[in-house]
């Protein structure tokens, strides 16, 4: 059992506040992704959990035990590094067995565990090679095997797929997810890639400027972003925003249309995902500017109310730049944000 609790963790580098009062609980065997743009503090948080960095204030608990004063090796964790950190002077075998050797495990046990994890990661034929003789993808597998061989309670991953090419990344994504689910370890995975986050996570913590903006399941984060930042960060193309002014009694005026909305004192931001709109007789009228046929669908970038507004339409449609489109937003997919606090309004 390895539930992770992060309590009031803050980190300051000199004058710079990298993390503000982070509180997060990660359930046993959960796959948690820390997602955010570079510089948002996600790697710092991971390094604090790992013990390579010390929090300025706050506590880290793993499996009911406070660990923030312990050395990394005593925390029951292991880690996959962004550049793999596969030791170049050791063979793959010795790399995977490095942590086990440090624990003074017997040769037989080391051999058994190394071979088991190598088989799991499909690198059993590479055990006598050196890191310099491996491809990026193989090195990545060695790094994961090394972390798994420790049989840790928690496995931490810092952008482990960011150095692979797109195709390999997709392949490794699925494989990693399967292997981790089978190993029954709690996983924390840092990435800036939202597709990776969406596809792998049980839960995503979206981070922005040293704070966790939202921690929820991928579909929740996608459908019900807690803040404007999450709405615009997740989803490709991102969510559309339009200014809405109150038209009384829960009605809102959006780009000349009157739409049902929350009972609140305005103004608000009206938000809709590009794929949640259809061509219709009534709705928002926009002028198509750029049309991108992407095969699976048609991405149309329009101008609406002086803003960029994107719609994902059926690929069978014929749309030309300059066309006037009438787009009907799917009512249950419309979200509202307070422009002052940038938070979602129900």
């Amino acid at each position: 059992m390895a539930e992770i609790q992060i309590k009031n963790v803050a980190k300051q580098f000199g004058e710079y506040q990298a993390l503000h009062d982070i509180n997060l609980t990660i359930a046993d065997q959960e796959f948690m992704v820390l997602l955010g743009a570079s510089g948002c503090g996600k790697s710092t948080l991971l390094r604090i959990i790992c013990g390579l960095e010390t929090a300025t204030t706050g506590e880290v608990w793993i499996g009911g035990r406070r660990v923030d004063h312990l050395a990394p090796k005593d925390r029951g964790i292991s880690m996959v590094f962004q550049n793999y950190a596969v030791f170049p002077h050791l063979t793959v075998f010795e790399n995977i067995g490095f942590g086990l050797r440090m624990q003074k495990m017997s040769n037989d046990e080391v051999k058994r565990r190394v071979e088991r994890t190598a088989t799991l990661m499909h690198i059993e034929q590479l055990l006598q090679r050196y890191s310099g003789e491996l491809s990026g993808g193989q090195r990545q597998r060695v790094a994961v095997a090394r972390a798994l061989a420790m049989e840790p309670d928690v496995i931490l991953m810092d952008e482990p797929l960011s150095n692979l090419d797109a195709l390999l990344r997709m392949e490794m994504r699925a494989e990693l997810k399967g292997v981790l689910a089978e190993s029954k370890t709690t996983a924390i995975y840092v990435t800036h890639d939202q597709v990776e986050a969406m596809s792998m996570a049980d839960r995503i913590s979206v981070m922005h400027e040293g704070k966790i903006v939202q921690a929820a399941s991928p579909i929740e984060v996608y459908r019900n972003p807690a803040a404007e930042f999450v709405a615009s960060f997740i989803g490709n193309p991102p969510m559309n925003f339009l200014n809405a002014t109150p038209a009384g009694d829960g009605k809102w005026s959006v780009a000349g249309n009157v739409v049902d909305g929350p009972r609140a004192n305005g103004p608000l931001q009206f938000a809709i995902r590009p794929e949640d709109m259809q061509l219709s007789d009534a709705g928002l009228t926009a002028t198509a500017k750029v049309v991108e046929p992407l095969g699976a669908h048609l991405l149309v970038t329009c101008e609406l109310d002086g803003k960029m507004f994107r719609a994902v339409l059926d690929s069978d449609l014929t749309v030309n730049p300059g066309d006037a489109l009438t787009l009907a937003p799917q009512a249950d997919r419309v979200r509202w944000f307070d422009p002052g606090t940038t938070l979602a309004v129900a």
Partner: protein
Amino acid sequence: MSARYLPYILILPVTLFLCIFFLYPFVLVAQQAFSTGNGFTLDNFRNVTGHWKFPISLKNTLLLAAAVVPVQVVLALLMATMVSRMKKGRDMVLYIWTIPLGISDLAAGIIWLAIFEQSGFLNSMLSGLGVIDKPANLLTYQNPWIVFVAIALAEIWRATAIMLVILVAGIGLIPREYYEAAEVFGASPWKRFMRITLPLLRPSLSTALVIRVILAFEVFAVVQAIGGTLFPVLMSETFNYQFELLNGGAAAAIALIILAISIGFTVMILRLLRVPKGATI
């Protein structure tokens, strides 16, 4: 001009320079060593190795290298590790530690002579503290070990920095992620040094060792300043043959013997610290 010949033309100046100033004199020295005026002979070698001072100076040279180089390796590693962990003042400490490199070896010898001689700092200090009644002459043939220690100390003081700068550069090249990975996987600071720093430092370490060992076999001015004739080494014998006995052939022969020893040790060091095939460091 054809592109085919351009590379050769570009390396021509340096090739000429090396031929005129290194290869040609070397051939002359070899010629001198292998002749006594009439044809090829090994007489010069028989002559110098048969002399009673040769085994002593060979022993002294090897002993000095054996005493000085290991101490310097350990010191330089220690200092390099320290320096590379410093966040502030790193450059200043490095500059101060490398000052001895800027001093000529004769001057370094004289500095340490000033410490150890009869009217030197050590004697004044000891008599000032009342440890000894009157200044003693330490550097005499009755105290060969003090002479040896004084020379070794001077050498360590003078030439450790040359290894230090190479090792500092080498340590700087080791990515931090390796240390972090080792730490996460349970390696103590000592284990990290033994299992990460040392193996990854092998290329720098072998360069530093080769340079240092070669310099150790060429030791001369420091020995001359402190030990004079009390502590003959191979290089001082070369000097004596050339300038005291005016026997150029014998001097050339000893010079070639020193070269052979240096090559032997260089090959040994390179073998010993060889990176395993396939490993990229």
